[in-house]
């Protein structure tokens, strides 16, 4: 079991620690509902150092990113980030990721912890024909997500950069918490705004401590993975392994907006064909109309009780007080407003397809 550089800190804070993607990670501290609300209304900090980071450098760097990823990285200027995915040759998704353009010929790819090895193998194979300089720096770098509407105000004293001036999906390489150079990125997985800080493992404890100190007057709280999941699901953000995987296409998953056919990439031919033929199933969001909580792998049914799909993510939405979920259904059932049913134990519960985000702020 791997640990992040902050494991002892989490344990001293009384975190409940669980194995996740090969790492021992904090799943909750004070309780998921309180943590969820803290991020929605104030500011919270997550240790998400299990996430993987690859550096792609050299004159062929852009070429590799373009071949591996579905979004168009040629649009990225230095200081901008982009959500993307790596399709496989059969149109499935190897991983979803964020691409940062750090320097002229340097890109950082931030990938899911559970997929680090798989992604590395996949992109290394593509790179055999490209020849970019590729480095896996996952074990040397930490990542803190400072999220919530008060994040910028609470963290401003820690940096010379004007935090409110960093546009969404942009970043600065600048001083933070007395560390001269870290990446301060206006990104996140919560829908409540805030920043992600990439730094070296040796720097993260100092940064964590100063973040907690600066945030104290804003009642900053440590937030675990359980609330990270409810926060992202209320926004309808995909979780790899649940809502997308090696067998789901980005077009089915509603990720057409990051699939750019104006450039070449692995899986393009397959996906172009799928686009021309039309998809047969689609990832939708739904809300339960009756009391109950949808869970991963529960059956989605039509009004006659016939199975039409499966729940890929589900929870009781803390901000909404009702059961919400996502899942793949035939296109005929995918329009918002369509009534569907979820089999929960012995009961078929009524639900309605909605267009995420579930939480509208």
């Amino acid at each position, binding site marked *: 079991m791997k640990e992040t550089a902050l494991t002892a800190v989490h344990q001293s804070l009384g975190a409940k620690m669980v194995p996740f993607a090969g790492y021992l990670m904090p799943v909750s501290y004070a309780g998921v509902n309180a943590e969820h609300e803290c991020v929605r209304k104030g500011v919270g900090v997550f240790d998400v150092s299990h996430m993987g980071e690859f550096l792609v450098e050299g004159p062929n760097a852009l070429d590799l990113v373009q071949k591996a990823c579905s979004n168009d990285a040629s649009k990225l200027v230095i200081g901008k980030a982009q959500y993307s995915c790596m399709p496989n040759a059969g149109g499935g998704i190897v991983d979803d990721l964020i691409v940062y353009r750090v320097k002229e010929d340097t890109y950082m790819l931030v990938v899911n912890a559970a997929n680090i090895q798989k992604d590395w193998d996949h992109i290394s194979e593509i790179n055999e024909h490209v020849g970019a300089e590729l480095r896996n720096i996952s074990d040397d770098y930490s990542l803190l997500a400072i999220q919530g509407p008060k994040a910028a105000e609470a963290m401003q004293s820690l940096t010379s950069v004007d935090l409110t001036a960093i546009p969404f999906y942009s970043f600065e390489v600048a001083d933070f918490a007395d560390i001269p150079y870290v990446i301060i990125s206006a990104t996140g997985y919560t829908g409540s705004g805030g920043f992600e800080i990439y730094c070296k493992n040796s720097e993260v404890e100092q940064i964590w401590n100063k973040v907690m100190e600066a945030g104290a007057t804003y009642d900053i709280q440590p937030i675990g993975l359980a609330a990270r999941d409810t926060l992202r699901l209320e926004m309808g953000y995909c979780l790899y392994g649940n809502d997308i995987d090696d067998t789901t296409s980005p077009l089915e998953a509603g990720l057409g907006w990051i699939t750019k056919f104006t450039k070449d990439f692995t899986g393009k031919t397959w996906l172009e064909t799928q686009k021309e033929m039309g998809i047969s199933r689609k990832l939708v969001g739904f809300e339960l109309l009756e009391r109950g909580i949808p869970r991963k792998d529960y059956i989605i049914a039509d009004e006659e009780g016939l199975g039409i799909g499966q729940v890929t993510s589900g*929870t009781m939405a803390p901000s909404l007080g009702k059961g919400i979920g996502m899942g793949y259904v035939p296109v005929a059932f995918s329009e918002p407003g369509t009534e569907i049913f979820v089999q929960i134990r012995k009961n078929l519960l009524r639900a309605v397809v909605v267009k995420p985000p579930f939480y509208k702020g």
Partner: protein
Amino acid sequence: MNIPSDLKYTKDHEWVRIEGDTATVGITDFAQSELGDIVYVEVETLDETLDAEEVFGTVEAVKTVSDLFLPVSGEIIAFNEDLEQEPETVNTDPYGAGWMIRIKMSDPSQADDLLSDAQYKELIGA
């Protein structure tokens, strides 16, 4: 960890209060703290007669679903309907307002097979 001495316990982390041939059932302080924030308690077996160890309901935390097992055989004569609106009571008051069901025991001698507070304490290593 709060483990009242006047209650009986099961290996499934339920507590049982025996009063005559009636048994009141909930989940233990240990169980609620392991589950985390409880968001739903579902009992659809009211008025049914079930055997010990049959599933009488489910308790859902944000991240998990757990079956609830009947500690002793009998008829489920009451469900704590307050939990429909305020399931978090199970977290805040597991042995009091967070009770779940009452059973009319069909064989009160089964109560002798339940764990004592000391045995339960040993089970959870408290």
